[in-house]
């Protein structure tokens, strides 16, 4: 793990209008993320986890604070959107540059695979979309790449031409992961990637994620309410309550020795069969 910062959040916050009052959905969140590091954001529903993720991925604009990202430029990506490399405040990047980042250097795995997939084209086309957006125009190579990614995420390659709607929930989630990783991003945002899957499928997906994160040296921000997911995947974790971070630290430390009363409650409320 090198010491160059990948992503840093500084006092990030977002407020929404509720009735006639403004209410902070998430407030004053700060952390640093290094390449290859996995950060879990845990908390009960409504605690601002997903809002935070959307702020980090620039899908929402920050109302306070800022997100900085180490933008890299590879010689091969001669895009009009490409510019200088270095650490940038995401709010100052052009929309073109942000969209370029979002489909090359980032991945976003949605909670509901339907939101992250293009449901009216086949699995193969879903995997190929990012490559085509970057200018790949060779059908045979696109297909080869799609097949190899389907194998990597343990999907049946015979179903490459099937619509994602015919896939099971777990397969859709795998497809979504393959579709995001095909451009070799450095940072992946995941919003409850295992919610809605049954436990055995969850376990296999987690296994796969752990392997991919390791192989590809991915950094990831994973939003989850499942402490087991955090324990398995994350190096560090943030605990959120009512839009604020109440505790952060190494995963094992937070889970084995929770300091904040809310974290203690959260840890003690997990059922251990």
């Amino acid at each position, binding site marked *: 793990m090198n010491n160059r910062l990948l992503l840093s959040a500084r006092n990030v916050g977002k407020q929404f209008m509720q009735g006639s009052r403004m209410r902070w959905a998430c407030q004053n969140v700060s952390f640093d993320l290094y390449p290859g590091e996995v950060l879990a954001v845990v908390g009960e529903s409504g605690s601002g986890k997903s809002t935070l993720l959307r702020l980090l991925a620039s899908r929402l604009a920050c109302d306070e604070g800022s997100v900085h990202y180490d933008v890299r430029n590879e010689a091969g990506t001669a895009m*009009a*959107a490409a510019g200088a490399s270095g650490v940038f405040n995401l709010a100052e990047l052009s*929309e*073109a540059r942000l*969209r370029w980042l979002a489909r090359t250097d980032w991945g976003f795995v949605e909670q509901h695979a339907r939101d992250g997939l*293009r449901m009216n*084209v*086949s699995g*193969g*086309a879903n995997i*190929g*979309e*990012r490559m*085509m*957006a*970057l*200018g790949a*125009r*060779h*059908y*045979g190579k*696109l*297909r080869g790449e799609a097949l190899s990614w389907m194998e990597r995420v343990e999907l049946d390659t015979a179903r*490459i*031409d099937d619509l994602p709607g015919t896939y099971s929930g777990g397969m859709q989630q795998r497809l979504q992961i393959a579709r995001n990783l095909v451009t070799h991003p450095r940072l992946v945002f995941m919003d409850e990637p295992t919610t809605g899957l049954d436990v055995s499928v969850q376990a296999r997906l987690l296994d796969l994620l752990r392997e991919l994160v390791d192989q590809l040296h991915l950094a990831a921000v994973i939003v989850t309410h499942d402490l087991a997911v955090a324990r398995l995947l994350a190096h560090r974790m943030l605990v959120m309550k009512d839009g604020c971070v109440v505790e952060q630290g190494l995963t094992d430390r937070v889970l084995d020795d929770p300091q904040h009363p809310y974290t203690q409650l959260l840890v003690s409320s997990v059922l251990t069969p």
Partner: protein
Amino acid sequence: MDEHYNFGFLDERTKKMIRRAMLKAVAVPGYQVPFGSREMPFAYGWGTGGVQVTASIIGRSDVLKVIDQGADDTTNAVNIRRFFARTTGVPTTEKTLEATIIQTRHRIPEAALTETQTIVYQVPMPEPLFRLEPRRSETITMHALGEYGLMNVKLYEDIAQLGAISKTYDYPVLVNERYLTSPSPIPKFDNPKMHMNPALQLFGAGREKRIYAIPPYTAVRSLDFEDHPFEIQSWEHACALCGAENSFLDEMIVDDEGSRLFVCSDSDFCSERRSAGHVGTQQAVTMPDTLASARGEEP
């Protein structure tokens, strides 16, 4: 000419507004310029966009030709030609070479166009991405940033499901290597004619209120894959009337036993050839019943 109407039906200020939109369209090849489309004495779908464009550029020295599906004598073509004859009094023609303005629907004439000509297309849907991305705000962003990977996703899907790109008309093109553009519902057979064409090409979409243009000598490339290159249609038969082997053919079923007559879709091209002495077989051909062999029957 009917003196009750202004020259070309539209009032002068409307024509000026449309010309202004066209100037912008010519300056940015392939970019869809919004304009204030007027209510015309036609139903939408009858070429109100094309008619407004033609009405704004037509002058007293022009000669107008109107075609629909390549033919000069179809309902749409006859009516639009009569409309302009009545409201402008300009001479009309069926000969491609004599015309200075050609308004068209579904075809580009077979005869090569020249620098002195303008071809006006009637466009039902100017947005090539509309079946793929329903949000207009999103397609505008995609055009602005040149993000056209999605169109290739569609072509990929065609090859994956059907073995070939299934789009045979309104085949998407990239104009001047910048804007993804719908060529209007012309067959892909005509796409290569748009490339580096000496004539000015104007596109009007009345219902969608957009005008776009391909200026003379502009590069127009049909999208494809390196290993599945763009191809135009071809026929095993020649035109039954004039014997032409390289024109776009209409297939007409002439009886209930599978006989088909192949004739040029461009009626002017066909009659020119016939008067030059070319003769086809004058025969309908019998096509094998492909469905019968698929059912396992003896043909």
